[in-house]
């Protein structure tokens, strides 16, 4: 029986007000080149809409890029909404301009990993492959 292999699905979005999207577009292309299906939801997404889209698209990973601050509030809200929707199995990742001292707080909220500005694309790809693999095995 020929059963199609499920591809890793990732939703990438930019909550909040920051306008730059060069960084996130580079990540989106790297994930595509690694064979993943990437839903790109553009800029200015509300946390509510990101979580709803993540659910509709049945993604493994929700990645958000935050460059203009507010990451603590946004990520706390995203993690809370995922739990409220019983969708905490979707892996939440954050990237962008994030001070190192905030990383433990973000992780305490439920962000699985943080990729600060300048993180290597290969590392992001590899991390997503790893967590999606764990998810598939679960």
């Amino acid at each position, binding site marked *: 029986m*020929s*059963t*199609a*292999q*499920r*591809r890793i*699905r990732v939703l990438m979005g930019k909550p909040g007000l920051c306008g730059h999207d060069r960084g996130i577009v580079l990540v*989106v*292309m790297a*994930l*595509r*080149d*690694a*064979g*993943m*299906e*990437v*839903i*790109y*939801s*553009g800029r200015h*997404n509300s946390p*509510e*809409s990101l979580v*709803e*889209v993540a*659910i*509709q*698209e*049945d993604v493994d990973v929700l990645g958000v890029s935050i460059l203009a601050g507010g990451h603590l509030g946004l990520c706390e809200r995203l993690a809370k909404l995922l739990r409220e*929707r*019983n*969708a905490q*199995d979707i892996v939440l990742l954050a990237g962008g301009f994030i001070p190192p001292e905030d990383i433990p707080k973000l992780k305490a909220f439920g962000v699985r990993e943080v990729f600060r500005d300048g993180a290597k694309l290969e590392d992001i790809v590899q991390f997503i492959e790893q967590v999606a693999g764990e*998810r*598939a*095995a*679960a």
Partner: protein
Amino acid sequence: MGDRLGGSADDYVAGILRGDRRSIARAISAVENETATGRAILRNIQRHLGRAQLIGITGAPGAGKSTLVSALIGEFLGRGRSVGVVAVDPSSPFSGGAILGDRIRMERHSLAERTFIRSLATRGHSGGLSRAVVAVVDVLDAAGFDLIIVETVGVGQSEVEIAEIADTRIVVCPPGLGDDVQAIKAGILEIADILVVSKADLPLADKTELDLRFMLSVRDPSARQPAIVRVSSVASIGITELADSIDARRDLGVGKRGIGSRARMRRLFAQEAANLLRRRMTSIESPALDALCDAVACGDIDHEQASLQAMRLVMEGCR
């Protein structure tokens, strides 16, 4: 029979019928990937199908399809209808990955309760793209969506085939592409029930409409005559008229309960059967088929008779 997140097919079917969004979303993944759970879900929802009207929207990249879908969602929600969307984008031929960006243009409906939007990549469906799309459409149909819109890029045979399966087929022609031939070459004008001239706020839209009318006038007069509707999604021109034309087709009986799902299954059959037949008829070693070719060439038998006979031969696994 569970899947990676522990749901059984029965759980999913119950969730789909309740309209639970996580169930719908995961069921779509299961049927798209043709898992055992996915097949069981499809089997169990069959008797809940046939209510939705299926709309296919196709056209060149950048023609304005996604923006139009967004405008149509708004229009139909306003008419009290619920709308499911399947947005198909091409996969990369190199990595098999895909960037699915159609829903950026539909963002304002992301949180609408009576809307469900799902992005689908073209690659990796062992049973073919059309079959995968029909399976996804079935899940949305069972979930009770009144209209289901499938957006595909009108290039490549498999994409055009998807539009063909729809009850109502819309081909979007943007102004200023200059090459009217493009649309004819792809053969997509032939499948249209409704031709949309998009971006009607642009000055070149007049010329595009004239070109289309001319092309239709020089076709075989017995061919189906599609309606032409001018639309601007950004200036909100023609959206009401387009929705009216779509509704008019529903009133003709297209997409009525119990009819729609069988009709699309038949069209899927027709495509798959034609593809199967083509593959076999062109590759099979058969003296009988060779003899038939000679008979047609000599004028001993006409083409239609010969085709029927050839089909019979191929189905009997001819020698």
